């Protein structure tokens, strides 16, 4: 990621670095949910470190998400997880995000979820993950903030 080139994850493109493009590849979504274009992007610039999630993120994407989470955790900075285009977060994805928050928390860094859609918030609330992920307010869905597309 440090050489200025994008690399691909197993299913999804993961891009890092300033103004770097991303690649996206569709995968099969969770059987009980409407398939959506899942994507996982890492954006690191001078101002912030963002993990941008979109679509339905379930078991099949969790390894890629884990890889991305390790990358953002490795920056040593606070992390914003942008969920404006996230339609579903499965248990595997939530475990990754919880673990990311815990790992960063141990070194005093914050992981903040932003732009979470009401439907996802409700899901997080009834499953108890809202607390675990530090969702302190239901923010209005934000416009897509992905860059480098």
């Amino acid at each position: 990621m440090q050489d200025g080139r994008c690399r691909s994850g197993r299913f999804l493109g993961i891009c890092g670095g300033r103004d770097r493009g991303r690649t996206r590849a569709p995968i099969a979504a969770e059987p009980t949910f409407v398939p959506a274009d899942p994507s996982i992007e890492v954006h690191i610039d001078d101002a912030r470190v963002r993990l941008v999630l979109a679509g339905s993120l379930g078991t099949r994407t969790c390894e890629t998400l884990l890889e991305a989470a390790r990358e953002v955790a490795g920056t040593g900075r606070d992390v914003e997880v942008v969920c404006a285009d996230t339609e579903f977060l499965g248990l595997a994805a939530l475990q990754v995000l919880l673990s990311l928050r815990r790992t960063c928390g141990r070194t005093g860094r914050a992981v903040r979820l932003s732009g979470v859609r009401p439907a996802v918030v409700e899901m997080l609330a009834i499953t108890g993950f809202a607390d675990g992920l530090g969702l302190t307010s239901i923010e209005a869905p934000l416009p897509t903030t992905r860059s480098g597309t």
Partner: protein
Amino acid sequence: MSVDVAQFLQVFLEEAAEHLGTLETSLLELERTPRDAELLGKLFRAAHSIKGGAATFGLPAVARFTHHAESLLDAMREGAVVATAETVDLLLQATDLLRTMLVGGGGDAEGPRADQLVAALQAALVGGGAAVPAPAAVVAAPAGRRIHVHFVPARDILQSGLDPLTLIRELASVGVLEDVELDATRVPDLAELDPCAVTVGWRFLVRADDGGSLTPEQVREVFEFASMDAELDVEAEAEAQDPGAGAAHATSDPQAPTAGTPAAARAADGSIRVAVGKVDELVNLVGELVINQSMVGELVRGFRIEKLGQLIEAVAAMERNTRELQERVMGIRMVPVGSVFQRFPRMVRDLGASLGRKVDLVLIGEDTELDKGVVERLADPLTHLVRNAVDHGIESPAARVAAGKPEVGSLRLTAAHQGGHVIIELRDDGHGLDTARIRAKALAQGLIGPHEDLSEAAIHNLIFAAGFSTAAVVTDISGRGVGLDVVRRNIEALEGTVAIESVAGQGTCFRIVLPLTLAILDGLSLRVGEQIYVLPLTSIIESLRVRPEQYRRVLGRGELIDLRGESIPLLRLHHVFSIDVEAFSPVGRLVVIVEHQGAKMGLLVDEITGQPQVVIKSLESNYRRVDGVMGATILGDGHVALILDVPGLIRTGHDLGKRITAARAQQGALS
């Protein structure tokens, strides 16, 4: 299946008391480390456990009140509210009220105090910016029957294509989720995470939709496809619990507690929670004992002299098992001394704040076990000593700084096993005792004579003397309404001793030595005349036959024996217990030397008959208190023997010796 939860209420109350203790001590720690995530998690779990238990056991007022405290703790855990001295204080007050509510049977949450605290807790929550709006599916107002669900999915459930979150969504569609608790404590760090392995679990409290119904079976159906290799517990609460209705509402279960049922009365019954393993050991031992008994019975019934060896062997085995059984049963009564220690951090904090003292209390050895009876009766004297240490032992911050000490005083309360005893020490680094003032006061009160040459330690011990007024030494030693003599009496009532060490300017240490148990005692059996007495082994230094050169009579001090240069008063037990004997000289007779708090005495007896382990029976509860006697016991041969009270005998001995000597002197009978 209906479960009578009332039978477990006592257990819940005991557990709740432990959780309250955890809350209190952890809140005090939180003041020092307000961002300690582990501590915040511990606090949250304690509050959550109380809330859950209270709801289950029909204490809705407790559950509702705890919910507010829990919400604040949750916000603190998530970092939305930062723990400050004010929030900690508020939560401590909430803990106090919860304790009062639980002691009172779970009611009384509707009083103005509770309302004030709830308002303050809510204000702290909002003020801290924490706001997790309850989504539509999670509502706060409960009604109807509630069902507790505990669900831990199989670790590999995701590989089967089933996401547990979909099951929870389905659960929320069949009923209303009132409470959700996610247990994510086992989720590892990123470096070790396998996201496809499930490491979380849940507890839900779910009820039927308004006007609808919900059965445990319906809930189980939701998890039907996930139940393989999963942990799933589904339990319905008792009918119609309406927290909004307050404490005045009784549950449908006549056994369940109501506001008018004082839980304190239940708690006063006293109970001990025992590990299943310990009970299993007892069952095994009893089993072996039954086998032993059967063997002995068999041998006795068809006894022939050639079977004598087998009989002796069988009886010996029976003795071994009986003794082991006794030790293990006594072990069940052992509880950690921490249950007493737990109250002191809060007490020291509050007392320090009100007196302007800064005190750092360190507790060591809280796991040290003592007999339950001893632990319960240790609380009062120890509280007195701790209060005294903060009040009068440790100086004000300014005085400490002026004396070249750290501003914050140190108070260390330790417990440890030593031999067959437990040693409890309370050590402060305050200004120590003022020896000159104690001596002056003791002199003024006639406790010592003007020419009496006392060591510094002996002068310090005077503060334990009955009648040693605290009035004039308020600022230096005690100042409480109750003197340290009461502390000593309480400790002695536990068959313990208390001693003091103090160095001017450096601090004071109270050292309490307690027996592990009050129920059984290792003793030495003695014959005096025709009577048998038992002397506690722990008080005995040695026994000897008096040689002529060792024996002296001193006017004003009675009979003495010289033991390696030390003059020890002699007490004839015949006189103490009015046993008629012809006058005799102690020379050549048997004397047992006993000691209590540095004071030694020789007890003149006729014979040492054995070293039995005896079960102590209270004399006071069946007869009355007798000076010099701590209880009675039944010996192996069926005879009753009195157990001697050494501290009492030493006090009696001093008086008796003086009286006898004086009387003889008057009669010119000394020879």
